[in-house]
């Protein structure tokens, strides 16, 4: 029995593989579809990318800031999962056509045009749809001398917003855990893996970071005097606050995405691992689950009305959904003999990413809210855990040992374009911060 048929038999439903846009039925559909409840796909392709051109961004000054904005913008657009930045081939360089015609010939459907303003301290950016010649948006951004890349991230997030409906996630940061011998501390880095910096220096174990919806604070689980506590750290001041003033195991905090005052978490304070919510000062504690099984790893729906979580109440860990008051508990993932854990609700609300134990180890999958369409995003390459969505819903961060050790990776939401973000072998448990509005450098917002 080969690995695939074994895998298929384990799931008792048919398996189809979407591989570079071709759907391949891996094995006997007829036999298996009789038992079929769920469609399982393995995806290794990707959505079609939008061709985009970048023009202008020339400077009369000598600081080189605008050229750094341009190169970072190109990296961002190539990275975000929606676009492919086009270059004008040499054959078109000397053509006598208009700029729009040249970019169309280079397979771009959108052109980003930048002109420096205010003595090279700002840039005015236009996005033009090349088919209709309609200006999609026009905006002027300040360039801050010690961080021109930030201007590029905000521009990229605005361009992504036009096509995605939700602004991009590049003017943001990623919190993660890095192990250093027996200690684990929180670190931050930019979404492209650059500018890594340490957040905690506590000489203990700090795990499971979760961002507040306003991006000001991170809640995490910390081993504090032989007790696992939920701790909150202010990202700007570094001040910490122990939220859980009670004994027992307190782990897996998850901040309500609509209310920065409410946190869900797992606690054994009443004897068994259950899910609770409380305010950020630890008050107004509410117990949501009441079952002798393990209930852990809560994740909120984007509107804050529901919570998905892991429970082994059926005998193995599975993903469940309940209302945020604890009512209406239902199992999301199919009733099969598999181990499923670590749910993360997508920012659009329609999918939940989670971890499933396959023949090859742990893999990342997504499932819709009906529980009838599951897509494997990783498969056959190391053990892959801790899926976390980017705020724009285009990317999924995860931890994998595919390069040896534990490293952070990022992929498009459909499983394509997997990129490593760390290579030290000691990084895990990522969490993507809410995106900056960019209003601090948007000239129109500052007037």
């Amino acid at each position, binding site marked *: 029995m080969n690995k695939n048929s074994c895998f298929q038999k384990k799931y008792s439903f048919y398996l189809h593989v979407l591989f570079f846009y071709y759907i391949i039925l891996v094995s006997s559909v007829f036999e298996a579809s009789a038992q079929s409840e769920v469609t399982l796909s393995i995806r290794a392709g990707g959505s079609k990318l939008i061709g985009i051109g970048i023009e202008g961004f020339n400077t009369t000054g000598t600081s080189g800031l605008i050229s750094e904005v341009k190169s970072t913008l190109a990296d961002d657009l190539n990275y975000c999962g929606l676009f492919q930045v086009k270059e004008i081939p040499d054959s078109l360089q000397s053509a006598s056509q208009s700029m729009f015609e040249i970019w169309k010939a280079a397979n771009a459907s959108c052109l980003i045009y930048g002109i420096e303003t205010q003595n090279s301290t700002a840039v005015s950016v236009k996005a033009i749809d090349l088919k209709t010649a309609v200006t999609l948006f026009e905006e002027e951004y300040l360039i801050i001398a010690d961080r021109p890349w930030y201007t590029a991230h905000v521009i990229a997030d605005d361009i992504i917003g036009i096509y995605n409906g939700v602004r991009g996630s590049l003017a943001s940061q990623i919190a993660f855990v890095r192990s250093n011998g027996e200690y*684990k501390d929180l670190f931050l880095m930019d979404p492209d893996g650059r500018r890594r910096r340490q957040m905690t220096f506590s000489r203990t*174990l700090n*795990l*499971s970071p979760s961002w507040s919806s306003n991006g000001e604070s991170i809640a995490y*689980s910390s081993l504090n005097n*032989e*007790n*696992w506590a939920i701790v909150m750290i202010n990202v700007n001041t570094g001040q910490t606050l122990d939220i859980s003033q009670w004994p027992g*195991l307190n*782990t*897996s905090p998850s901040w309500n995405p609509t209310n920065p005052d409410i946190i869900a978490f*797992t606690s*054994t304070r009443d*004897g068994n*691992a259950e899910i609770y919510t409380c305010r950020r000062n630890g008050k107004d504690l509410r117990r949501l689950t009441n079952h002798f099984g*393990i209930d*852990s*790893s809560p994740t909120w729906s984007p509107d804050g009305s529901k919570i998905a979580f*892991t429970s*082994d109440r059926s005998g*193995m*860990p599975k993903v469940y959904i309940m209302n945020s008051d604890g009512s209406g508990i239902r199992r999301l993932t199919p009733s099969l003999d598999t*181990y499923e*854990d*670590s749910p993360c609700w997508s920012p659009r609300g329609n999918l939940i990413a989670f*971890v499933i*134990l396959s023949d090859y*180890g*742990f893999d990342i999958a997504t499932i819709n809210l009906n529980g009838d369409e599951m897509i494997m995003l990783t498969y056959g390459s190391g*053990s892959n*855990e*801790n899926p976390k969505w980017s705020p724009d819903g285009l990317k999924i961060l995860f931890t994998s*040992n595919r390069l040896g050790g534990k490293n952070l990776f990022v992929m498009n939401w459909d499983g394509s374009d997997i990129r490593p973000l760390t290579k030290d072998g000691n990084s*895990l*448990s990522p969490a993507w911060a809410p995106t900056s509005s960019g209003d601090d450098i948007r000239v129109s917002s500052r007037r």
Partner: protein
Amino acid sequence: MYKKGNVAVVFVLGLLLTLASFNGCAKKKAETPPPKPAPVVQEKKPAPKPQVKEPERKIVEKVAISESQFNTVYFDFDKSDIKSDQRSNLSNNARLLSDNSTIRIRIEGHCDERGTDEYNMALGQRRADAIKQYLIDYGISSSRISTISYGEERPVSSGHNESSWSQNRRGEFKITSQ
């Protein structure tokens, strides 16, 4: 006399030369005796310590328990029930606690690297709790037992195969007070 004096001078010179040529050795030899008193000094130095240690020894004689006498209890993957082949390990620990009623312990629950950190943290707690419940059922007072989970944070074996995993899925006993 003169001859005798010559012989005496030669003898004395020869002796001096001999001593000089063996100077290094002679010094070493000369220094070797002091190490003999040195141990005496060392023996004298710790002498005050036994006065402090003696009461401790008396306690140790009474209790005579070390952490290594407690067996580690092993678990199956994603399970927290005490396996039948682990009951003798655990009943030995229970007997030790029963015979030494002043000892307080902390049970540390651990998991293998498979599974998500957060779920494993809860699973490790459940393993520690299962051991605690066994001890309570045996008659050990729950006030003597604390528990903590380390999830998959503290493996004893760093391999990525079943032989390592099986060693890491465990409950350990730590003495918190004698």
